[in-house]
């Protein structure tokens, strides 16, 4: 019965697309969780789908990827950094920086002998190339 909702094949308008069994595995990986009632499992799966939709659309809307009709990783990491609701993702969606840029940055810091805002520079460098 647990997997029945997930096993429904065919139409995209099924109630939930993410497999309940997999959601359950992830939930149970938390040691403090004893048991999960069927409704709670369904709701978590459904909430995760809503979350994916929300993260994707928010990032697309507020990002620069759409200038090229795309959703990019940078759009996502911007969202994690700038939107409070998504801040819990900041650690797993870190800002990217090219290794060469980072090395240049380090050299410049050494030369100037000042402490700069790493993030600020990284963002500038990054946006230049995007």
């Amino acid at each position, binding site marked *: 019965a647990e997997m029945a909702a997930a096993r429904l094949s065919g139409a995209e308008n099924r109630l939930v697309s*993410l497999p309940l069994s997999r959601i359950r595995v992830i939930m149970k990986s938390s040691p*403090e969780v004893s048991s999960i009632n069927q409704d709670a499992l369904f709701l978590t799966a459904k*909430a995760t789908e809503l979350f994916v939709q929300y993260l994707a659309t928010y990032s697309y809307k507020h990002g620069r990827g759409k200038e090229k009709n795309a959703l*990019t*990783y940078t759009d996502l990491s911007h969202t994690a950094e700038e939107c409070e609701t998504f801040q819990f993702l900041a650690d797993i969606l870190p800002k990217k920086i090219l290794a060469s840029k980072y090395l240049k940055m380090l050299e410049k810091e050494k030369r100037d002998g000042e402490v700069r805002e790493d993030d600020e520079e990284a963002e500038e460098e990054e946006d230049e190339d995007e």
Partner: protein
Amino acid sequence: MAERPEDLNLPNAVITRIIKEALPDGVNISKEARSAISRAASVFVLYATSCANNFATKGKRKTLNAGDVLSAMEEMEFQRFVAPLKESLEVYRREQKGKKEARKDKDKKADSEEQDKSREEDNDDDDERMEEEEQNDEEEVDN
């Protein structure tokens, strides 16, 4: 217990489909973006579970229930999910109930068919009826 990495991931195909259906047609989603969203979704499940579990614990319960998950959504600042989740839950519960009743009806029907049959037949067929009843019992066990 060590989980293999892929066990805590959600199926790529499904994640991709959800993203594509949410975005305007023709928008390209980089593999990196897709993978990032998938990881984010797994983290979301963990975060939601932990949060819901706090509510269950507060309520002195060991089993996470629907209310705990909904409370978690509010706590996590995803209030916008609550109304659609409640709607979906209603549909889900009806579906589950429908399935249960379909199974019950199937058993009931089998029983009543038996009874009709026995009314028409004479006592000589008592043995046959008993055999059918046994068969029905076996079916239930298999289910």
